[in-house]
């Protein structure tokens, strides 16, 4: 819905995903740089946190920019 001046729900979602992406990608990179001696998860070598976090950053950035307040409909 679009009422005059109302921020789109997609902006909120984008902003949250962007922050989540930064946190998750950051944690993944930390694990990549200094891997734990005994990984507690399966397929730790995939470094899912890095690419999943990067995906969230990209998605979040797209939605944040596209639906930023003041950009109209």
């Amino acid at each position, binding site marked *: 819905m679009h009422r005059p001046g109302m921020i789109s729900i997609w902006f909120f979602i984008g902003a949250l995903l962007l922050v989540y992406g930064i946190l998750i990608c950051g*944690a993944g990179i930390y694990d990549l740089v200094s891997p734990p001696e005994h990984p507690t998860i399966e*397929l730790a070598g995939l470094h899912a946190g890095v690419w999943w*976090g990067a995906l969230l950053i990209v998605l979040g950035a797209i939605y944040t920019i596209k639906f930023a307040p003041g950009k109209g409909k």
Partner: protein
Amino acid sequence: MQTFTLPLALLQAGSSLLSLSSVDLAIIALYFVAVLGIGFYLKKYTKTGEDFFLAGREMTAWVAGLSFLAANLGSLELMGWAASAYQYGILAAHWYWIGAIPAMLFLAIVMIPFYYISKTHSVPGYLKLRFGEPARALSAVSFGFMTVLMSGINMFSMALVLKAILGWDMAVSIWVSSITVALYVGLGGLLSAIFNEVLQFVLIWLGALLVSIIGLIEAGGWNGMVNRIHANYPGQDFTHLWRSLGNFTDNPMGIHWVGIVFGLGVAISMGYWTTDFLVVQRVISAKDLRSAKMAPVIGAAFKMCVPFIVILPGLLGLAVLPKGWLVAENAVSAAHPHSYNEVLPIMLARYCGPGLLGLGVTALIAGFMSGMAGNVSAFATVWTYDIYRAVFRKQASDEHYVSVGRWCTILGVLASIGTAYLVMQFKSIMDYVQALFSFFIAPLFATVLLGMLWKRASSAGGFWGLLAGTASSIGLWAWVKADHSALRYVALSPAAKDMAENMFRALWSCIICAGVTVIVSLATKPKPERELVGLVYGCTDVPGEGHLPVYQRPLFWAGIVAAVFVAIQIIFW
């Protein structure tokens, strides 16, 4: 449609399954900040009754469609059906496919025009317009009662799950989540509930999807997973949808295809997806009729994909976890500390490191809260419009009803908390709630459908049909409870299990409701046609869509979704 087998098993879990890092906790905390922030932000846009109870009827098809689905996608749904997939295999996917898709498309194409054109605020409100006050009163009271009960049980279950997988205190979980939901729904009404549901929907997908992706990588793709399951469980069929449904004893669910198709696909599914106000409310908040019709179609398209994040983790558990590692609820012991019901958090812990684990747990919390907010917002609407306005104060200002709605939201949450504590003391209540829920839903579908499609259905027919359907459902349930051998009549086989009994009971109550409605209607005076305008086929001008390009017509997209649905049934036959 939710399962309630989960929490009783988790009661036996002694220690927490997952441990969270500071990044995980930050992600969870940010989620709470976001949902509360949205609630506070939207308060200034929620001034009238239409704003508070129907989100101003301004939702786009996408927002209404995603919210329609998210209100149903609670965490019990996620964890319960992942557990069912581990126990029964891909048969559990019937609840997402035949148990949802035909009903959602039927709602979109056949029923939405009447809900929308009649401008009703609720499903009981439609019954009032079509059949009069007694039918509305019966429906509103039963819905209000059930909604609070369901919300409380959801709350209790969430607290139990968080205690089991994270070691969190149950009282803290109940109060923190309840106050959060009460605040954001109380402030922004349905508008806030819908906005948050869309956010929660996205988080549920992003939090749960990774388990399936990494699981498939570990298992060697779909074929690798199937081969591993066959190797782990030789002679058992966990990967076909229909082949083993020819006989009650050929499949682990103890069910027959007649029960799945007519009981689940017709009576229960149609009842839930087309007449449960919890989900219908999201659709009638759409900005125009086309959006209202598109919303369930969009919901159906996503619903078809939900097994990828719910059923697949259960199947992957069968493939990659050691055989027999997860056991039935009543077989949990020191040697086998984990039950089927824990398969989703176990798979989450198997693949998700710091950050991702927080996202996964956030997905579970988001699921719980979206379900709870859905119940509370629907309760506030039905209580305010169909009970308070109808019985206590017929003429009051719009502002007054909004105020009552806000108080009802808080009241609904408090009643839910009370129910949660009650369930904590008397856990057997949970065994009955699933049955209680089905008492009201299946017959309601027959009443609403006949009301919409048959001009001759009279007010007396609608009321007595609904009452007879509900009473017969309760009677059949009590009959089997008192004498288990009655199962051969109720479910058509003494070998039928609980699921099959639920399906057949729903089917009988639906048939009895329809039969009584027809008989009483034929014996009583129908409403004049002029009073049925906007409520019944044949008396209502439903706006055509001929002027729209084909790709913008809901019927076209419903056809696409239906074709994909059929293809899926054939692929996994």
